[in-house]
């Protein structure tokens, strides 16, 4: 695993300081930069865990038809046009005509352009076709409608419809009464500090009484008997439901389970005759265990979603309505506000480059497994050694920024769980990070950069040197700590990590990044993390967690690192 940097989102936690990196909760509160949003209103980072999500439209990922939300439910969340998924391999199916009848002399008859019925669905990837399961069509259009009949007559579907019918009048009747009665009680539930109209509506919906189900009240009621009064009252309102068929015989109808499946498995000769879990996973209804029974699936609809800041309800991201469009109307992503940080271990870079070239030579398929192990072994850091590392910051703003990095002190809170002897040593942090805390600048982002001379264009000497095969030493090794490089809107600073001899675990530490930028006629600062120093500048600070790699303990050899 290459060294990584993740960004902290406090998610309304009262502690703006993230948990120490060795705790399990650490991974919960850090995210890759590209998944984060930034609310300008609150001046804060927001992540996918704390934003509120709204569906702004449904569409079919295959035909890109935008499905009105009213028909989504009626069409059971799947495309009702001509889009089907291969039940065998998940590829999209296409409608193809049949072959012309064999003339008999072995020659192939001329193929008409119109196509011969019957038509069937065909997978160009695994060559499954719907005629294998007895599904053919007279004409190549309106396939979903043609299939609808068999889908609707399936026992599960009929049962579901019946259930809906049964509950419909009760739900309708109760929605009138509960809408007035349930809301005040739900107000008590809104203990959430930042609750808004959206969250209030959601919690009201969750707290609403469900007819026929006893009111959930965990505190006042302990035993079952005490609630009988309430329950009996509800029971009277609701007639008993009688299923269409006896559930005990359902397995004979092909819904799966029971003796037929046992019998099938007993006489199994080929593993591929059993439909894998993956193949049965995306069905709406219970399906048979046998591969030969798998039916084409209507493609599930996708949704476009917009996300709001949970505190101020401003929209953070909003896609364009059209399914074909991949653009956004509003897009406040953190990558446009916070500097992008990447970490590299220079001693690995050479080896990694070598390894990936080796991997490319290997035949397809096997390569990934091996290189993972190799990378694992190579990304390890030997206990007792000192390694330099590079932090490179890229400024997304159109103004230069001043950045200050500070590594959060590791207080390894006395690991009481550790047994005797080791605990004394473990008390000390397993490694020490040295990184300059002096602020440094990162130049502004510009749309187009002129090529730096030493970047792409070789000067004559160098060209000469390269041509004659003796390349110059890339760079004289000077310093490892401090500012190493500044080019375009990127600044690279160096740090060092010293691993103790008895170190174990991962080299992982929290790093506070604060940057000062020119505030363009911003009003009085709002939100917690920002403080204005001077009238013209603002400072924003955020935490990151840096993971350099696993520590290879002293005693062990380099090979068996997988413990």
């Amino acid at each position, binding site marked *: 695993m290459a060294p990584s940097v993740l960004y902290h989102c406090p998610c309304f936690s009262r502690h703006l300081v993230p948990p120490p990196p060795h705790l399990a909760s650490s991974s919960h509160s850090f995210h890759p930069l590209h998944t984060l949003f930034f609310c300008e209103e609150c001046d804060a980072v927001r992540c996918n865990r704390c934003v509120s999500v709204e569906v702004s439209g449904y569409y079919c990922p295959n035909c890109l038809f935008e499905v009105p939300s009213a028909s989504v439910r009626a069409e059971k969340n799947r495309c009702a046009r001509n889009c089907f998924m291969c039940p065998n391999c998940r590829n999209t199916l296409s409608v193809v005509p049949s072959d012309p009848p064999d003339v008999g002399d072995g020659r192939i008859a001329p193929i008409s352009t119109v196509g011969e019925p019957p038509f069937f669905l065909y997978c160009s*990837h695994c060559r499954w076709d719907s005629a294998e399961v007895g599904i053919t069509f007279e004409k190549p259009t309106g396939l979903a409608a043609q299939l609808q009949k068999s889908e609707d007559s399936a026992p599960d579907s009929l049962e579901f419809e019946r259930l809906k019918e049964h509950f419909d009048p009760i739900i309708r009747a109760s929605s009138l009464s509960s809408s007035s009665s349930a809301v005040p009680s739900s107000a008590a539930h809104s203990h959430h500090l930042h609750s808004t109209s959206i969250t209030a509506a959601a919690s009201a919906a969750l707290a609403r009484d469900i007819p026929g189900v006893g009111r959930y009240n965990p505190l006042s009621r302990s035993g079952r008997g005490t609630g009988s009064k309430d329950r009996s009252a509800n029971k009277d309102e609701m007639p008993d439901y009688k299923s269409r068929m006896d559930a005990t015989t359902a397995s004979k109808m092909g819904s799966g389970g029971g003796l037929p499946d046992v019998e099938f498995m007993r006489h199994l000769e080929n593993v591929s005759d059993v439909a894998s879990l993956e193949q049965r996973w995306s069905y709406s209804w219970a399906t048979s265990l046998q591969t030969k029974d798998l039916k084409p699936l209507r493609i599930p609809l996708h949704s476009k979603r917009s996300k709001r800041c949970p505190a101020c309800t401003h929209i953070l991201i909003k896609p364009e309505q059209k399914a074909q469009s991949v653009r956004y109307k509003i897009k406040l992503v953190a990558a446009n506000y916070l500097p992008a940080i990447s970490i590299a271990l220079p001693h690995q870079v050479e080896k990694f480059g070598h390894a990936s070239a080796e991997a490319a030579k290997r035949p397809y398929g096997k390569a990934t497994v091996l290189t993972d192990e190799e990378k694992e072994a190579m990304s390890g850091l030997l206990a007792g050694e000192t390694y330099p590392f590079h932090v490179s910051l890229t400024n997304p703003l159109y103004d230069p920024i001043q950045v200050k990095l500070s590594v959060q002190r590791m207080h390894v809170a006395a690991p009481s769980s550790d047994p005797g002897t080791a605990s004394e040593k473990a008390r000390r942090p397993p490694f020490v990070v040295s990184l300059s805390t002096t602020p440094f600048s990162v130049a502004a982002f510009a749309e187009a950069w002129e090529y730096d001379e030493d970047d792409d264009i070789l000067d004559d000497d160098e060209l000469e040197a390269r041509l004659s095969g003796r390349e110059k030493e890339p760079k004289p090794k000077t310093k490892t700590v401090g500012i190493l490089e500044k080019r375009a809107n990127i600044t690279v600073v160096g740090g060092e990590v010293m691993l103790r001899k008895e170190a174990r675990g991962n080299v992982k530490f929290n790093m506070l990044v604060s940057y000062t930028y020119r505030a363009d006629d911003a009003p009085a600062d709002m939100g917690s993390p920002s403080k204005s120093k001077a009238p013209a500048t603002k400072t924003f600070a955020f935490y990151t967690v840096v993971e350099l790699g696993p520590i290879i303990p002293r005693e062990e050899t380099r090979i068996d690192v997988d413990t």
Partner: protein
Amino acid sequence: MAPIRDKFTIHSKAVVCQDVELKGDITIGSGTIVHPKATIFAVAGPIVIGSGCIIEESAIIVNRRKEVMRIGDDNLFEIGSRIESPSIGSFNTFSTRCRVHHTVRISSFCVVGAGCLLVPAEDETLEDYTVIYGANAERRKWSGRGKAQEADLRRKHAEYLREMLPKFNRLRRGEASRE
């Protein structure tokens, strides 16, 4: 090992581009198309390719065995495929960057999917209509429905190439006589 003697027998109606690498005893049948940058390498025994095959760019066909490697008619070898099968039937498709080891004999109407690796340790023969697909080179049997249309498409594909390739490429031996 004796040095490989080159001996190319190319049918006058085959289209073999100049920029292909041929080594050893190779026979190419009528109407077969060999794109530039393809490699046909008869290391040990000869290679005999039937008619109407399409061998695309950077495809590699190798015969490591002593006996003749026979390739039937109307096979498609897509870009970057590497095939060492000792025998191949007709109407097979070898998709992009797939690889078939010399332990596998191919019957007819088989499909080896893109990137699939077919390298069994022991000799085996793929039956007619076998489909290899997916990252794990899973197998299944194709019903064969639609094969007439596919064959028709394959022929049109070859026909188009026979017409277009000579306009932009020099041909081997200049033998592709056109009426």
